[in-house]
């Protein structure tokens, strides 16, 4: 099993040099992406095969650390994430077969793309600290290369720079964590780490380190700063992978270390995870609401979903620590299911954004509008994505959030009072973020696809190519299926929870009408299929009845708009004006949002001006000072470059005297 997975990774790695060689030729992009598609599909199959029945398999190669070797292992958890990674990879490749044709600098994308996929797969497969971190950082490196693919734009370079620094930070922190786990004599093998037992204190430190390390990659607040810069900068299919898949690989890292390697958690470990999860969810979506760059909005929204996932994981920790296995299984399933769901619809949305970018050359929603007329199919799939990510039934986003809520509703059974009070508050945050997410995507879809075109670019937009559409249609189909038949996917996760928690949610497939029942039917149950069928039926019945019995006549006319004459598209609601009420409610405190209106006096002919000022307090509080300090230190120390020889000698002399003094005393 693991061998076939590794050979797949090998194939991907081999594709990179091939890409370097082929890059001159025309068909290169098609060829590379097509082969990536095939390989990733195979890898998906491998993952599925392992998840359904195949036993855990592991292998050790004479690579990596000399006396340790490189160990790889394919267990249920890895298999699940292999599936997530490669579904994302496959669809991205399919999308890119069309998208890549119009890539301005393929020679900077093609070589790194397969390597990037390989890196993500390797992280999931690695079974010793060294291989894990190597793959982890390799993943960051290749994605960095993809981020700076369009290096002529200054901000892309900046984004890449911040990204690389944060990645380096994360890796070093994880390095600390493994240093603690492996101990002094450096047994970096996951197997031996599992057997070694740390006391709760050390475990807590490791947890914090992992939260920092994996969290910075996943984009938890306040370590998210790089994410909205880097994800949009990359080519869209790569953005999809970074946002939809790589953040999930980071989640994998967290789950692997905290749930698998650390052994039995202490109940209070869950507190930071839950708190951070809740804050991340709300902050992420609030940031997203303030954006008018489509891809950046999506990137910020990834932050929100990461928060939701971490809420699930935190609950799982709490339940596990208190030995409430069933509840823990439920919470973990919720988290992991959301991992899968988010990877699906976030990729879908980024593809949509990419299609729009290709068709109009615009990422700024203020310059879009009315695309539903020009690109109906893209609009449709994008709409599906929006509904799914807004956690609305009958799509998949709702299922995982619903399960999370169910898990939260089990919290009163927790003995510890801190959690009794924390969890409902987190629940409130989760609810808030869900509602805001809906608002956010009404804005995203409404402003860019509905209404009237705001620029010429938007009026001349053309529907995107069939490959891209195929990828997007596939993903939207997955969104629907996972929404109406969630039981299958929940059962898919059973082996994972079995390995990590020791038990799993009740078997869902057997239930009549394909309902899902987290704990007991008397508690709660949900049936996406029936809801879907109901809505579809009643809607069509209504339509049929009305058209048959009442009128079905239609007359086209100018918009009514309270009787105002047809005004120019500029009078439409823009993204920022759509966000204005929410900005006034939340933004004034979170972003110190200020609206400066400059209205000329009556009779004056100069135009009126209205500007909105937003401040990113997190950046100002955490990141700007660090940069300032480095600058300061660099400038201060730089004096030492310009001393005279005598002064340098004085330095040497004083060091000598100092050391002699040390000896003398």
């Amino acid at each position, binding site marked *: 099993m693991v061998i076939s997975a590794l050979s797949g990774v090998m194939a991907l790695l081999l594709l990179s040099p091939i890409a370097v060689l082929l890059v001159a030729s025309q068909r290169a992009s098609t060829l590379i992406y097509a082969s990536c598609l095939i390989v990733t599909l195979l890898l998906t199959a491998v993952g599925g095969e392992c998840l359904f029945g195949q036993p855990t398999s592991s292998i050790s190669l004479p690579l990596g650390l000399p006396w340790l070797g490189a160990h790889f292992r394919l267990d249920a958890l890895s298999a699940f994430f292999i599936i997530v990674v490669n579904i994302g990879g496959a669809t991205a490749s399919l999308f890119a077969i069309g998208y890549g044709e119009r890539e301005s600098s393929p020679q900077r994308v093609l070589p790194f793309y397969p390597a990037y996929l390989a890196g993500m797969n390797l992280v999931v497969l690695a079974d010793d600290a060294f291989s894990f971190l190597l793959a982890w950082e390799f993943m960051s490196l290749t994605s960095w290369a993809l981020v700076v693919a369009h290096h002529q734009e200054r901000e892309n370079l900046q984004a890449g720079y911040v990204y690389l620094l944060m990645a380096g930070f994360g890796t070093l922190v994880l390095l600390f964590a493994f240093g603690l786990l492996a101990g002094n004599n450096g047994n970096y093998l996951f197997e031996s780490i599992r057997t070694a037992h740390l006391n709760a204190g050390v475990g807590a430190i490791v947890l914090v380190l992992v939260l920092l390390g994996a969290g910075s990659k996943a984009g938890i607040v306040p370590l998210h700063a790089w994410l909205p810069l880097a994800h949009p900068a990359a080519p869209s299919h790569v953005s999809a992978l970074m946002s939809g898949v790589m953040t999930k690989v980071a989640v994998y890292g967290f789950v692997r270390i905290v749930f698998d390697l650390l052994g039995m958690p202490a109940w209070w470990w869950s507190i930071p995870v839950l708190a951070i999860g809740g804050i991340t969810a709300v902050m992420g979506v609030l940031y997203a609401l303030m954006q008018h760059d489509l891809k950046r909005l999506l990137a910020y929204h990834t932050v929100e979903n990461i928060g939701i996932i971490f809420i699930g994981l935190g609950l799982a920790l709490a339940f596990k620590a208190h030995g409430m296995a069933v509840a823990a299984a439920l919470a973990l399933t919720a988290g992991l299911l959301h991992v899968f769901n988010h990877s699906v619809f976030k990729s879908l949305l980024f593809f949509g954004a990419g299609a729009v970018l290709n068709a109009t050359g615009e990422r700024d929603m203020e310059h879009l509008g009315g695309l539903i007329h020009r690109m109906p199919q893209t609009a449709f799939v994008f709409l599906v994505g929006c*509904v799914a990510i807004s956690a609305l039934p009958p799509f998949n986003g709702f299922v995982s959030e619903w399960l999370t809520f*169910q898990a939260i509703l089990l919290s009163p059974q927790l003995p510890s009072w801190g959690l009794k009070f924390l969890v409902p508050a987190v*629940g*409130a945050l989760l609810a808030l973020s869900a*509602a805001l997410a809906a608002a956010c995507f009404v804005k995203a879809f409404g402003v860019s696809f509905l209404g009237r075109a705001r620029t010429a670019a938007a009026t001349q937009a053309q529907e995107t190519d069939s490959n891209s559409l195929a990828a997007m249609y596939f993903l939207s189909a997955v969104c629907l299926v996972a929404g109406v038949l969630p039981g299958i996917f929940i059962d898919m996760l059973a082996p994972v929870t079995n390995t990590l928690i020791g038990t799993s949610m009740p078997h869902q497939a057997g239930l009549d009408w394909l309902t899902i029942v987290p704990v007991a039917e008397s508690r*709660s149950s949900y049936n996406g299929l029936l*809801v879907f069928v109901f809505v579809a039926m009643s809607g069509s019945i209504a339509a049929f009845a009305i058209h048959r019995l009442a009128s079905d006549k239609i007359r086209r006319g100018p*918009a009514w708009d309270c009787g105002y004459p047809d005004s120019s598209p500029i009078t439409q609601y823009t993204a920022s004006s759509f966000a204005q009420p929410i900005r006034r409610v939340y933004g004034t405190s979170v972003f110190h949002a200020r609206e400066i209106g400059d209205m000329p006096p009556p009779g004056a002919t100069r135009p009126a001006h209205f500007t909105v000022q937003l401040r990113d307090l997190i950046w100002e509080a955490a990141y700007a000072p660090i940069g300032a300090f480095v600058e300061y230190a660099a400038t201060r120390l730089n004096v030492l470059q310009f001393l005279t020889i005598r002064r340098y000698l004085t330095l040497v002399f004083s060091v000598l005297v100092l050391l002699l003094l040390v000896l003398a005393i």
Partner: protein
Amino acid sequence: MSVIRDFALQGTQMLLVLFLAPLFIGIVRVVKARLLRRQGPPLIQPYRDLARLMRKEVVLAHNASWLFRVIPYVVFAGTWVAVSLVPTFRTGLLFSWTADLIALIALLASARFFLALAGLDVGTSFGGIGSSREVMIASLAEPAMLMIVFTLALVVGSTQLSVMAAHMTSGAVGLRVSLGLALLALIMVSIAENARIPIDNPTTHLELTMVHEAMVLEYSGRHLALIDLASELKLLFYVSVIACLFVPWGIAPPDGGIGAIAVGMASYVAKLAVGGVLLAAFETSIAKMRVFRVPAFLGAALMLGLLGTLLLFVSGSL
């Protein structure tokens, strides 16, 4: 045999709510008029309006998309399904388990999602005002609603409406502060959700003050009819939820016979009548508030909900 009966009952429920929704609005309007010393429209006026709209042709804006035409049906269907899954006169209906309270709220949320999109579709400024304010209100109302659900679910140990209703009737639940808070919050939320005074004025035509109406400004004919019907259904939904959770008496148990069902129906209609009167009285007694006072109002609801949840622990009954 029983399956057929269950199907029949489910069907009855669907038709019943469809029939009762305009009536409830009618009641509210009549009572309001009377309180204002006006004659007021006849009770069946809402039905007339709907019928008239149905027969009229639809006038579509030039750049209205296909989405604009689909949305009314979606909104209507979503809301209708939501209402028909609430136990009104009988608990344990056939499909009652397909969606628990959270799912129902989410169903309404998706209806609102599409309605907001419709507001943006034609590309007019008023539509924009409407939908942006609508989502702002929703962003506060939904969390509040979910906190209420938490409170109730923690009391009852379930989010399944019919189970909750049954549990409430069983009288196992004593009088609780939390429940009181929850009820209060629920009422506030329903007022906000249904665009009633003081949040929004359903009968206003002063553009800048309207939320829901501005959103559907471009609709006409059968589309408008469906949307009106949907909003009436939504109002009915909240009233029925309040009814079956806080005044559950009279609801027929799953095993109840025809008699019980008849009692259930009667009591349900009675509850609606009372609710309508109360709502009307409330609406006439206060004035509409500024849009940006709404957050405070709903924030209060949210706090009440959260408070209710926390008080549960303090009362230590769990």
